[in-house]
């Protein structure tokens, strides 16, 4: 069975500090990967997607970057956090590409920037 793991579960960071959030999918080869973010009181919005190792496309510009160093790993990072980065970050994967394709979500990471 496939599993998706996100780390850390929660993080409290200072403005200007670096950030690295991770996501690992086990049990599926070559998944399509996605990062979503939800600001407090806001809507979940897609930030990045990747359909293969080493290739990541940005959907929304938020002064964040993403990388896919391995087939089963997706990393979200920044060198300098902003207050506006606070929120809930979800990693997701899908096996198929298409409007009908179900996306499977991880449990998320709650980030508080002070």
């Amino acid at each position, binding site marked *: 069975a496939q599993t*998706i793991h996100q780390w850390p579960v929660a993080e409290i960071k200072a403005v200007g500090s670096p950030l690295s959030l991770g996501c690992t999918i086990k049990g599926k080869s070559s998944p*399509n990967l*996605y990062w*979503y973010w939800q600001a407090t*009181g*806001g*809507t*979940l*919005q*897609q930030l990045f*997607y990747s*359909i293969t190792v080493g290739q990541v*496309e940005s*959907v929304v510009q938020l002064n964040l970057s993403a990388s896919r160093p391995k087939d089963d790993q997706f990393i979200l990072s920044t060198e300098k956090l902003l207050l506006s980065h606070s929120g809930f970050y*979800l990693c997701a994967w*899908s096996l198929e*590409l*298409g*409007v*009908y*394709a*179900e*996306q*499977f*979500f*991880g*449990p*998320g990471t709650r980030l508080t920037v002070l």
Partner: protein
Amino acid sequence: GDSVTQTEGLVTLTEGLPVMLNCTYQTAYSTFLFWYVQHLNEAPKLLLKSSTDNKRTEHQGFHATLHKSSSSFHLQKSSAQLSDSALYYCALSENSGGSNYKLTFGKGTLLTVTP
């Protein structure tokens, strides 16, 4: 761009009463709609999906019918259970360019069912 509106942020119901969570959408192209449910401390999971106009879709006691004429995909259940307490997201799937298929979410409705 595409958008999804869930008018209720918070719904509180007594166990046994019917559930109706509203979802309307705006889209230029795609009409593939999803309902995701997120229980406390768990990942969002797919509850229902549909792209067929006027066809009822059912799963785990919940049902929804996509009505393209009114751009709606409301979630319903005849009798609420305590275990239905969760955050419910309505989402629209679209091709946002190239190989990317993204979900555009509503803000979510927190359903609380009380004894």
